[in-house]
């Protein structure tokens, strides 16, 4: 067995993901957040956006659910572990920093997919027809990877104070929602808005979800999926690289 081989490191990353799920996700408040967030978003949407079509609203809602859940917990894991000193344990064990980042990402991907699945079930329960299930099934995991990589990027600043990171990530996450075609359809955006929108991976995911539920879309579906995959790769690579650099400063 070569402990540094990719397959072996991936197996160890999976162990880290299971640890994350046990320690950080399967907690009362986190689970309640995971279940209530879509419910509250539904309420807010129905009360607020009566004049927009249901399929449009729901696609934005599904996009937001995945985005917020996949980035909810992961930015704080490094600071938490730094504070609890368990990060020192991981640093002294035969896992690479890339494997630690991958493990944290896997956990947040699973959490994001789980909660998003609940949202989609509610949507279908509300009578919304799922027209392109396979497209949705392919794009959700890719988008989940992309968003959880964003979560890991938010975790890069080497602070061991979780609330600092939470504040920072909230500040960065909300503006992203406003430029991603969730509240305003891309077709109705001004040119500068559209320029911002194409920079946000959430735009492409929302577009795909819209296509899956209503058949309407702004970009070709393949472009959406390719953009998400590209963002996912670039963000993951960047997160791993930056964590390698900031890890020593947490110790």
């Amino acid at each position, binding site marked *: *067995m070569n*402990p*540094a081989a990719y397959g*072996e*490191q991936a*197996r*160890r990353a*999976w*162990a*880290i993901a*299971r*640890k994350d799920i*046990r*320690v950080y996700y399967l907690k009362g408040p986190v689970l309640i957040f995971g279940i209530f967030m879509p419910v509250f978003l539904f309420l807010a949407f129905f009360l607020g956006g009566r004049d927009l079509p249901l399929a449009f609203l729901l696609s934005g809602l599904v996009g937001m659910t995945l985005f917020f859940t996949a980035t909810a917990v992961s930015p704080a894991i490094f600071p938490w572990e730094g504070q*609890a*000193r*368990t990060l*020192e*344990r*991981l*640093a*002294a*064990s*035969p*896992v*690479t920093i890339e494997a630690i980042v991958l493990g944290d990402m896997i956990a947040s991907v699973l959490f994001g997919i789980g909660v998003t699945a609940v949202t989609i079930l509610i949507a279908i329960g509300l009578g919304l027809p799922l027209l392109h299930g396979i497209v949705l099934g392919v794009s959700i995991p890719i988008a989940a990877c992309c968003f959880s990589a964003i979560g890991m990027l938010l975790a890069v600043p080497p602070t061991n104070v979780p609330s600092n990171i939470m504040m920072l990530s909230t500040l960065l996450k909300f503006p992203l929602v406003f430029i991603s075609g969730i509240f305003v359809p891309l077709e109705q955006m001004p040119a500068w808005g559209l320029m911002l929108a194409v920079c946000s991976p959430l735009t492409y995911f929302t577009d795909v979800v819209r296509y899956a539920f209503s058949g309407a879309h702004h970009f070709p579906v393949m472009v959406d999926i390719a953009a998400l995959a590209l963002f996912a790769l670039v963000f993951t690579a960047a997160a791993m690289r930056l964590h390698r650099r900031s890890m*020593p400063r947490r*110790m």
Partner: protein
Amino acid sequence: MPNVIEVENLTKTFGAVTAVDRVSFHVRRGEIFGFLGPNGAGKTTTTRMLTGVVPMDGGSVRIFGHDILKEPVQAKQRFGVVPETSNAYVELTAWQNLMLMGDLYGLDRTRAERRSRDLLETLGLYGRRDQKVQGYSKGMKQRLILAMALIHEPELLFLDEPTSGLDVQSTQMILVLLRDLNTDGTTIFLTTHNMEEANRLCDRIGIIRAGKIVAIDAPERLKTAIDRLHRLEVSFDRPVSADALAGLDGVVKADRTGDKWRIVTEDPDLAIRSLVAFSADCGAAILTLNTLAPSLDEAFLRLTGEERP
């Protein structure tokens, strides 16, 4: 390859503080190496660099021939670490912590479970294996950390003050386990303040002061290197004359204290031979003969104190 750890010119600075200053030493296979020094001397910083937790600013560390910066995973796979501060996942049970360690070191489930059971039984924690670590006492946590460090049967074990703050039972349990491990071939790098512990356990001791190594040697030789003059205590079954004793080869001074003589010598070997010959010559049988070596405490204070020997 007889050297398990090879450290050369290891250096670490924090701002203006040079915590570790061009430290070089090696640890041989199968030995217990004690790393001693007063608070803030740089023991923990050194241990963390050796175990790949923090990068060094200069110098190199090789563990089993693997450079800790270039091949960290290969090096880490072969050692276990008991860090200065307890760091089990307190939200997990002891058993879950051990299973996580098993996975991180690539053990299969059966082996991880067998090892965990054995270790928890040895360390008296098996009955509490399904309790969250949150509810553990300090001593229990420390024993669990040791079990976690040993799950993959490492050939090398790093411990940073493993017994600090523990009661006699926990301390004893840990020390006995360390000695047994060493008998079975595990090399041990042990950081401690406790002279008694170092004296009893270690084959060699390195003493660090303000980031610099000031001495590396076997405990007995460290003690004797400090104090050129040794003391012997001898008693005979009949009175002997002070002048006769003081005139013996190798004896510098002889004082009577109670029914014993206290002899000062520069060469204990020669002095003991002279005493034995003297006893045969004058027909005074030796009742007791003790060598009073300087204590390691003394050696330590002299080496780490302000005035250097």
